[in-house]
């Protein structure tokens, strides 16, 4: 089922006969490592087997077996298939050694697993809740945790048909709101979290006199959650010495919409429109990743024409996303709104194509398992051709002329927010952030999916790892995307667009699958576990924005406070995906 079965690495079993065993559940792949030896095994995986990139960490609550499982996906930045390992512990006292010391990129992902699933990671330097707030009751992704509006284990709900007496759910709650409180809770005795641990964590390096020898206290500045530069509801706690950033902690969860919890209640198909709302600037790519993961489980492939349409749509999405990213980066640098207007104009024309084909500008919901929702309506192909062959190349050049050599952009961008290649890999950065640091890792090349192996394109790389390079790489990538679209349009075959008959209740065999695509923001992975029922047992999104933000502190340290805005802009985060 899972394509990442690594066969040449059987030596893992030989090397650690005591602590490693094959995961032999039907539909599963990889190895199960005992928790006590996890660090040792992972060090071997990293140093001797060369899996230098930790793509994803998540947990699965196997409630019927009383087990909590942590799932790790490793890859090599030199390309090729990955390696999956798992660790199982008792779900009541779930504690697993933290991998932060080996892979700093594990930081936020482990905090997320702690927050949502209650897996304690021993040795984690700062294990606080990340998406919910300190003090929230319970770990919501545990299977026995139910929200106030809980109705049934899985959709469709029985109350909707045939006796669908309509009501609003708040009317059945004593507070007329989406709330519930533990028994015996007294609000008067409650002390809300005042963020003191958070502030302490940025302030722990006490300033012992800088170069000047004068002792100063750090000043702590909160940027966000409502701040014009944060691209939504994101908050940064910055410790400043003078104007220099000494420490920075991102605080998130202000848009945590419980995507995964809802996703585990939805049927497989019902999740498709929800993925649109992850990274709402590039919904087609999200559809792509999810469709791949479920198709892997189902063992089907879309017909040729659908593959081409998928690639075309995904690449158009990349262009529109990068346009928006460049526009808002320039906004953040102070070129208030004019570049944005230019970028949005092209984006609007791309959205017109999406609207004509998929029906909505930004919430496309276009992919189906084994195909796409509908064929191109009349006239859309010409529109695409006009854009891909005539307008976009010209307009990207214009954008280049307009911004690239602008002295202010250079001054604000060059040498700011540097991330070295080693750091980028260690922090599991992906997408443009990783490639701007000189690591030519693009999943379309390194581990091709769909039909990307048929197209001729270059993996854009830049080597300075600063804000300016992260801008440049997006321009480069747009050019490459145009190339791919041109080839795909020229090769677009005729034929069906859907494998078999469209079905609203798909049969998904039990097993696990990790489907990943090179989304405009980086590696977007969907980890789906099915137990053969209509709803996924586990549905996890490895969101590129979320993982990329782990490196924010490293990029920002030592820079001036005004640069944080530009650095954050250059990572290109989207809150819908960051907080899910």
């Amino acid at each position: 089922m899972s394509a990442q079965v690594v066969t040449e690495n059987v030596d893992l079993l030989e090397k650690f006969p005591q602590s490693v065993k094959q995961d032999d559940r039907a539909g599963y792949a990889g190895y199960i490592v005992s928790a006590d030896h996890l660090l040792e095994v992972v060090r071997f995986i990293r140093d001797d087997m060369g899996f230098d990139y930790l793509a994803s960490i998540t947990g699965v609550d196997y409630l019927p077996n009383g087990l909590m499982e942590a799932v790790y996906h490793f890859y090599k930045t030199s390309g090729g298939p990955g390696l999956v390992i798992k660790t199982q512990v008792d779900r009541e006292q779930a504690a697993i050694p933290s991998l932060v010391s080996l892979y700093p990129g594990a930081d936020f992902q482990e905090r997320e697993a702690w927050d949502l699933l209650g897996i304690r990671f021993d040795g984690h330097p700062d294990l606080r809740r990340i998406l919910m707030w300190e003090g929230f009751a319970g770990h919501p992704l545990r299977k026995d945790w139910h929200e106030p509006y809980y109705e049934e284990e899985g959709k469709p709900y029985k109350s909707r048909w045939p006796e669908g007496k309509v009501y609003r759910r708040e009317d059945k709650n004593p507070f007329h709101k989406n709330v519930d409180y533990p028994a015996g809770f007294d609000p008067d005795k409650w002390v809300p979290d005042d963020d003191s641990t958070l502030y302490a964590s940025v302030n722990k390096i006490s300033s012992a006199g800088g170069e000047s020898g004068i002792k100063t206290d750090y000043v702590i500045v909160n940027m966000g959650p409502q701040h014009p530069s944060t691209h939504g509801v994101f908050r940064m706690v910055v410790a400043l010495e003078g104007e220099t950033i000494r420490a920075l902690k991102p605080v998130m969860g202000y848009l945590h919409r419980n995507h995964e919890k809802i996703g585990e209640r939805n049927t497989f198909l019902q999740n498709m429109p929800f993925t649109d709302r992850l990274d709402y600037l590039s919904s087609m790519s999200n559809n792509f990743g999810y469709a791949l993961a479920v198709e892997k489980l189902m063992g089907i492939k879309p017909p040729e024409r659908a593959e081409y349409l998928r690639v075309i749509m995904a690449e158009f999405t990349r262009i529109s996303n990068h346009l928006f990213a460049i526009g808002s980066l320039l906004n953040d640098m102070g070129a208030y709104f004019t570049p944005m207007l230019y970028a949005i104009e092209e984006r609007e024309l791309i959205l017109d194509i999406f609207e004509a084909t998929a029906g909505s500008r930004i919430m496309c919901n276009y992919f189906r398992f084994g195909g796409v929702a509908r064929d191109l309506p009349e006239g859309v192909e010409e529109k695409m051709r006009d854009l891909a062959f005539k307008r976009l190349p010209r307009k990207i050049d214009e954008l280049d002329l307009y911004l690239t050599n602008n002295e202010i952009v250079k001054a604000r961008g060059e040498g700011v927010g540097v991330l070295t290649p080693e750091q980028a890999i260690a922090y599991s950065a992906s997408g443009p952030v990783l490639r701007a640091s000189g690591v030519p890792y693009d999943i379309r090349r390194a581990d091709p999916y769909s039909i990307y192996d048929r197209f001729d394109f270059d993996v854009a790389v830049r080597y300075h790892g600063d804000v300016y390079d992260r801008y440049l790489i997006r321009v480069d990538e747009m050019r490459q995307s145009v190339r791919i679209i041109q080839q795909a349009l020229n090769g677009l075959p005729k034929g069906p667009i859907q494998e078999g008959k469209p079905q609203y209740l798909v049969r998904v065999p039990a097993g696990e699958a990790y489907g990943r695509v090179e989304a405009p923001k980086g590696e977007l992975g969907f980890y789906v576990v099915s137990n053969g029922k209509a709803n996924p047992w586990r549905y996890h999104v490895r969101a590129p924005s979320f993982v990329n933000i782990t490196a924010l502190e490293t990029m920002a340290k030592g820079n001036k406070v005004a640069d944080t805005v530009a650095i954050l802009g250059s990572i290109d985060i989207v809150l819908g995906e960051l907080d899910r």
Partner: protein
Amino acid sequence: MNEGLNKPEYEIPPEMKHSVAITTIDRIYNWSRRSSIWPMMFGLACCAIEMICTAASRFDLARFGMEVMRPSPRQSDLMLVSGTVTKKMIPQIVRLYNQMPEPKYVVAMGACASGGGPFKEGYNVVSGVDNYIPVDVYIPGCPPTPQALLNGLITLQKKIDTQSIRDVRWYKKGTSETIPVPVLGPDIMDPREYDLLRQYTFQKLNPENINQPSVAEQEKGS
């Protein structure tokens, strides 16, 4: 749009002798307000992207005098709640609302802000921003397209047109009420509901009380 005000048979309260002048002032007053609504620069989720597109080249909010998006609540007239309101965010939203000077308006853009939207069942999602702050216009859609948003803003302008300087709340005596900021507890807590909350958790603690009228029923009765 405020034709009603101009009709000769319009009932003139005795203390308002110069009704014609009042009506005209109303018109001018409303016209100037509706033509320069400054929204707060404040995006929450997917709908915010459509809001940005509305402000950008193709739809151009400037035609309505609304292009001046202010990052500070102190300088804005309109809070465009564009996206999912989460429990973690609602304290900040209420605080921002309290900080906005009168006259202030709230537009709930999209299904999420109106009534919870697709993520309504989520544990961290507020079922509609109007659970906490008053909303003037609701725009359905997920997301409302820029044109739908513009239509909503025109609807808001129509509402402004019907207001009269005599009875708007911001010229009434007394300071305008601030909304108590919700507190993040084990779940989001509204300070106005602490009594109900205590009752509820107490009842939950003693399941033998279950035969007594539940809180919900008491609520209904009252």
